[in-house]
């Protein structure tokens, strides 16, 4: 082949297009052999050195993990063409079966290899587990590990647990508590929370009247908030006494404070609420799936098996940042690794009853509209 300027320019143009098409420089790795590469898009925890380093060492692999703190962003990264970058995606329960699999962003796992792991999980994850399966119930779409109830967090020295569970979301309708609560900045969860505070089930299509009620609630609740911030800001404000409770939170957000010696801070699951079956709490379950990558790394499946090991599952539960229960606690080999303090931090004492009071995280059909209303409500609080 003769190399002339024209062919070089053509090559450059193609490269330029590839660069423009994918904001991330994944184009290069897509063309290389992927035996030793693994790219993970996940919530924080899976990207920690504690979890990844032993795997890297054992397989001599280059593992890149990027952590994001909301599901829609991760899914849109795949939609924007990054399916040829990532091998694994770790998001909350509804996305795999309701969005990513129908859109062919992920591919199924071999059932015979991975289903046996579900047998050893906590009872409610017995196979076939709903959120791990596709709609038809034939394909296994991902593996479950971390989960938890996620409604709101209270300083039980200020508002006792019984009252909080009993009054439930109406705490945020109480004018006396205005200025005494914070709001965690995870906006997707706040949409759920505000619907529930308004007495509306979030996970359905809403009438204009319901949306109006939602808007009124959003404006009022944001106006009454002492602060909006991230997990660290919430825990700091709880501990210092700036606030007594905060909206949308649970084990995931409060466990660092509990582990630091503030067991009075507690994720609360209300006894009742407007959701299906009169339930008052919302829970999330992470599902980790294989990305529909044309050059999928063989290490992807290896990694999914690796994190199911009791020791690694324990590490994942207590990876840096937040501490969470894991499904593998159903396995006595794994459960025995948890110390009393660790169980305390993740509210093991009430985990089962809390989960029983929860519906599972789902997609809000009119989320976009609700989020816009909520953002506007935030803007006018100042």
């Amino acid at each position, binding site marked *: 082949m003769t190399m002339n300027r024209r062919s070089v320019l053509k090559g450059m143009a193609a490269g330029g297009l590839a*660069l*423009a098409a994918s*904001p991330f420089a994944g184009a290069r790795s897509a063309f290389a052999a992927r035996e030793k590469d693994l790219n993970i898009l996940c919530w924080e925890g899976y990207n920690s050195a504690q979890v990844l380093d032993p795997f890297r060492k054992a397989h001599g692999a280059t593992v890149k993990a990027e952590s994001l703190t*909301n599901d*829609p*962003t991760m899914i*849109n990264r795949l*939609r*924007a063409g990054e399916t040829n970058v990532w091998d694994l995606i770790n998001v909350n329960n509804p996305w795999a079966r309701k969005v990513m699999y129908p859109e062919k962003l992920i591919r199924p796992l071999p059932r015979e290899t991975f289903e046996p792991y579900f047998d050893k999980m906590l009872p409610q994850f017995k196979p076939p587990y709903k959120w791990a399966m596709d709609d038809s119930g034939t394909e296994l779409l991902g593996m479950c590990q971390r989960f938890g109830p996620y409604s709101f967090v209270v300083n039980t020295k200020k508002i006792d647990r019984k009252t909080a569970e009993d009054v439930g979301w109406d705490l945020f309708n109480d004018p006396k508590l205005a200025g005494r609560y*914070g*709001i965690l*900045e*995870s*906006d*997707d969860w706040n949409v759920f929370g505000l619907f529930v505070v308004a007495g509306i089930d979030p996970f359905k299509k809403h009438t204009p009247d319901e949306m109006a009620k939602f808007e009124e609630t959003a404006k009022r609740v944001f106006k009454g*908030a*002492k*602060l*909006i*911030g*991230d997990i*660290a*800001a919430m825990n*700091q*404000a709880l501990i*210092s*006494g*700036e606030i007594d409770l905060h909206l949308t939170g649970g084990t995931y957000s409060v466990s660092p404070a509990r582990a630091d010696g503030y067991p009075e801070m507690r994720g609360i699951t209300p006894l009742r609420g407007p959701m299906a079956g009169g339930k008052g709490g919302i829970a999330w379950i992470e599902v980790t799936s294989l990305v529909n990558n044309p050059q999928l790394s063989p290490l992807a499946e290896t990694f999914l098996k690796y994190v199911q090991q009791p020791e690694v599952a324990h590490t994942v539960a207590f990876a840096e940042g937040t501490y969470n229960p894991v499904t593998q606690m159903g396995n006595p080999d794994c459960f025995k690794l948890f110390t009393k303090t660790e169980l305390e931090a993740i509210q093991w004492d009430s985990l089962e009853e809390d989960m029983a009071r929860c519906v599972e995280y789902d997609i809000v059909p009119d989320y*976009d509209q609700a*989020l*816009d209303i909520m*953002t*506007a409500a*935030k*803007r*006018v*609080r*100042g």
Partner: protein
Amino acid sequence: MSNAMTETTLAGAPEAARAPLSARFAALWAAAGVRCAVPVVVLLAAGFLAPLIAIFAYSFAPPRSFDVFRAFSLANYAELFSPDNTVWLSFAWSIGFALVTCALLAVISYPIAYGMVFLFGRWSSLVSVLFVFPLFVSENVRLYGWVLFFIKNGVLDGSLKWLGLGGAPEVLYTPGAILAGMVYTYLPFMLFPLTLGLSMVPRDLIDAARDLGANRFQIWREVEVPLAMPGILIGMLLTFVLAIGAVSEAKILGGQSVIVISHDIEIAFTYAQNWPLGSALAVLVTAFIGALTLAVFARLDLDRLLGRR
């Protein structure tokens, strides 16, 4: 001199115009300097222009879609400019914060810069190090430090209580806290251009003005400020541009009591997953800052202010 220049240009222009484009390009390519500059130009194009073009293109994609370059829509701009959209509030907050930050910083930095140039002598390098040093610590860490300082039962409140002086006033999670955080964060970006500007004022001119009867204020107004103007303007522009894009102060110190424009852009790109809308907002902010910068530089005749002509 200027006559000679005009003549050369006039003589040179038609000649260049006569040469065919390809020949001129070849001649340009033959220059070693141009070839050496290629990597830099490519890097700039890829790292600087490509994202800008992508954002610009996205702003014309249909709302909440990823159909960049495939569809054209003005819906994002229409939505931003629609009367019931409250995004102007975020704009107003950002511009307001930026203006006040700029003004406060000019007032605060001027005496410090004056001291560094005219008074501190050999201590001035130590003073600059003190102001530079915090830049080595991440902005968020420093802001969280302030939260710990001001929070209930924090450093300030706790100390005052321990001393029996009652608690500290509640300053956190207010617009005032945001402003204080911005002033704190951007101080070096005003201070150093200002120092540079003041150091361009010859000492003799200040002595001369005083000798001609000017008092301290008159010297400041008639000599110092006009001559330090390049530094003042650059410092103001720098802090204004940085401050209009500031988001951490509003989030951390302000507890999001105010939503600033960058936060709106961030929400559009994350929770809302409305990249086209976020891009349109980003384009508006960029256009605003660009227009402002051009306006300032058009007024800023550096050569004249530096006395080169």
